[in-house]
């Protein structure tokens, strides 16, 4: 599941920003991720994984880095499985 989440996050994110040269910790907003693109990314992730980002995750920080996005999706996937 972990690998699938990582692969899907990178695939969907890649459609919004150029991932070349970015580390898991790089600031995605600095890399050109717009507010609207982060919304599109969120909706695509929800659709694919069948999860819903709760209120506490609807902030800039959740989508500010690859690591943060993966951590959030992991958390939601675990909650769903539980």
């Amino acid at each position, binding site marked *: 599941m972990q690998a699938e989440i990582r692969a899907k996050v990178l695939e969907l994110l890649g459609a919004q920003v150029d991932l070349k040269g970015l580390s898991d910790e790089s600031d995605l907003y600095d890399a050109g991720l717009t*507010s*609207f693109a982060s919304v599109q990314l*969120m*909706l695509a992730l929800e659709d694919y994984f069948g999860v819903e*980002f709760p*209120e506490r995750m*609807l902030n800039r920080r959740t989508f500010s880095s690859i690591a943060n996005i993966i951590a959030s999706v992991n958390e939601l996937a675990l909650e769903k499985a539980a």
Partner: protein
Amino acid sequence: MDAQVSLLDQLLGAGLLFDTGVDGLYGRAGVFEDVVAGIERMVIAFGREDQAEVLRFPPGMNRAHFEASGYMKSFPHLAGTVHCFCGDEAAHGQLLGELAKGEDWTHGQKASDIVITPAACYPLYPLVAKRGRLKPQGGLFDLCSYCFRHEPSTDPARMQMFRMREYVRVGSPEQVMAFRQDWIERGKAFVTALELPHEVDLANDPFFGRGGRLASSSQREQGLKFELLIPVNSVVKPTACLSFNYHQDHFGELWGIEQHDGTKAHTACVGFGLERITLALFRHHGFDVKAWPAGVRTALGLA
């Protein structure tokens, strides 16, 4: 009956607004318009030293510009498009038949090239972009338009068609941020002169849907929008009568507006809700304009 209906009924009863049968769509009485005119004189006076370029557009904008603006991404629920009959005589006959029977006659209406202006500044950006690179001092524009937002309500401060007056600053991040900060202070002085209770608070636009919640929180976290709030219908939920917005380089990127050095321009605006400020005055000083405090009448040029 709740407080909102009550205020609306009072305004209709006093003949300040006229009912059209549609929530949020009202006629305005002469007295109401006198106050609007007074507010506009004040807006001009408060910004006079800056020598903004005055531009006026009709309350409809080019649909292609509207589409490019991205408005449908963020506010599809508020937009209003102008649709027209474009059929032949047979289609006309069908339409009349449907009308006569009280059936839906609008299904054949086709989108025209015009969309109802959602915010006074929307027609500005493509025009500025077309003029080419900005001068080092950037640009400053004075705009006013009737605007449309599809949000029927019995709150008289939430009209579907209303006038928005704006100053829009285009330039470097430093120039536009200085402009916005300056106008937050001027805005406070503006409503203080009108003897209206107020507070300035962080705000967000009403973005559509669940994704919009993320956009809203993002806008707040970045401190992009502030509103000057005045109790109109409700003390608990005061009404945004002025707003102070920093768009970063959103419109600069979208339209290719360039600063003198070729980098993308940043923009900011201050918006005045003319009906909302007018309603706040009636709400706080009463429906008899002649009985308003002398200072308020003087500020509005009504004395």
